[in-house]
């Protein structure tokens, strides 16, 4: 089951972008097929795929490989967002502009839900995309700053395995760090 990652309905509904895609494929570089943990196949331009250190080293080990690269730890949903990020990043590689890059990074983060961000972190970690990890870690830190323990738990989906007595004791021991937390 192959699907075009960015826009599965491309051929049926939208006509204008499809011509763009056509010219792009005509001139441009090699594509690489990447298969996510939920069995979706993403056809990604080589330059984008090489942003993923994990994929890059796969090709360094087996240069002539034309197979689909399996990404067993990567689900499709966060992966499509990671691809979106890397496509933007590549533009700045050719034309470095720190201010524009920062702006683009913060735009990227701004429109993502908490869940999106949290789901992307393990993917960025697995694919070893350092720039994205930095952006995500900062975004996550900004969003949980000054929030209650309960908020942070649900933000990350953490299971509280303390008994209520244990938690009460811990809170007492750490009372000095608990002044003025924002309301959830």
């Amino acid at each position, binding site marked *: 089951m192959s699907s075009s990652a960015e826009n599965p309905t491309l051929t049926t509904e939208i006509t204008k972008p499809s011509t763009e895609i056509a010219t792009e494929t005509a001139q441009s570089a090699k594509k690489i097929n990447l298969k996510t943990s939920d069995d979706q196949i993403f056809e990604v331009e080589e330059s984008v795929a090489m942003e993923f250190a994990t994929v890059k080293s796969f090709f360094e080990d087996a240069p002539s490989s034309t197979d689909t690269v399996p990404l067993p730890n990567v689900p499709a949903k966060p992966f499509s967002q990671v691809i979106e990020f890397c496509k933007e990043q590549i533009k700045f590689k050719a034309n470095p502009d720190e201010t524009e890059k920062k702006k683009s990074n913060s735009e990227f983060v701004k429109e993502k839900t908490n869940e999106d961000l949290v789901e992307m972190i393990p993917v960025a970690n697995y694919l070893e995309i350092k720039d994205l990890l*930095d952006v995500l*870690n900062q975004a996550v830190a900004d969003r949980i700053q000054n929030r209650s323990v309960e908020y942070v738990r649900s933000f990350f989906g953490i299971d509280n395995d303390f008994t209520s007595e244990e938690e009460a004791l811990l809170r007492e021991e750490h009372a000095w760090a608990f002044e003025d937390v924002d309301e959830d």
Partner: protein
Amino acid sequence: MGDVEDPDLISDLPQSILESILTRLPIRDAVRTSILSSKWRYRWTTLTHLVFDDKCVSDRPVVENCMIKFITRALFLHQGPIHKFHLSTSYLQCCPDIDQWILFLSRSDIKELVLELGEGEWFRVPSCLFNCKKLTHLELFRCEFDPPPTFKGFLYLRSLSLHQVLVAPEAIESLISGCPLLESLALSYFDSLALNIHAPNLKYLCLEGEFTDICLENTPLLVAMSVAMYMNDDIAECFEQSSSCNFIKFLGGVPRLERLAGHIYFTKYLSIGDYPGSQAITYSHLKIIELYQVSFEDMKEIRVVLRLITNSPNLKELRVSGLSTVVASAEALDLEFWSKDCPKDCTFKQLKVVKMADMSGVPHEMEFLKFLLVNSPVLETMSITPCVYVMDGRLNMLVQLVRFRRASASAEIIFTQDETLCVS
């Protein structure tokens, strides 16, 4: 959110990822992650960067005690090396707990230490600070110290900033020369100091304060410096008695200098002593020169400015401001200097930007502008901002400016008037 089915994607990630999130949080939030779950219980305690500031506690009557309690507890719970410790707070002044913390840090391989305490009683640096052998970065504000006799220097220190410190002059010099790798030095000192700097790897130098004498004895790699010199009676006296050439002492051994900024009495300071005309030094890397509060009534200061710019063949940008406090006298002595003694065949081959501020339109200033315009073939902009006190002379300045010949056909002259003042 809050569904029980939400999978926990984060807790089992490698410590390096979690550390990178925790380090980006204020320390108070990082400490609170202890209560998230048993996996998080000790996560924050191995962070190697600890930054404490006023946000650790909320402002209230016993805030000082809260702050002390916070830092002491955090340090006690911490495990392993601490590479970076920043404390910037207005709530704390000199107190014995700080000495304890520094003792603790001196045993945890501290590399980067910043201490900025509140106004008030100055902080006396405990001698254990000098046992932090692995320091690479040290920044202290409003403090006094006295290195112990056994102190031999910080062998790994690359960056040293001492803001408003009280130290014996000899101690400062031996501290600087005891840091062989030192690359960046910032010093503000307000107690008539004569300073010899011996720092063979120094690249960046920032000085501010009351200096009677500064000698860059051994700083061959210096790339950028910014100096603000203030005057007091002692210094004025020293200036009068000085016979050696300050220009040579300061700028005689910095062949790689790329950027120079001088504030307040810096140009005056450089003008003191007789410059041996025979030893022309070329600053072939110097690209940006900024000299503020230059007195265009003083021929010696004008000579300093000219000496600097004519010996910097790659100068790209020049910023000069005049002395806005002086009421300009229309008459000037030595005007024939510009036709007789002024360097004749010099061309500023790279000079693109000139910014002149606080101009009062005195004859020497105008001659200086004329000199720049006629000798700068690639000049792109010259902006001129008149001094706010000069109202009547502005038109006269413009009339003169229009007449000056320009070597660069594309030079734009921007005369900036402060609109709010002109309206009145």
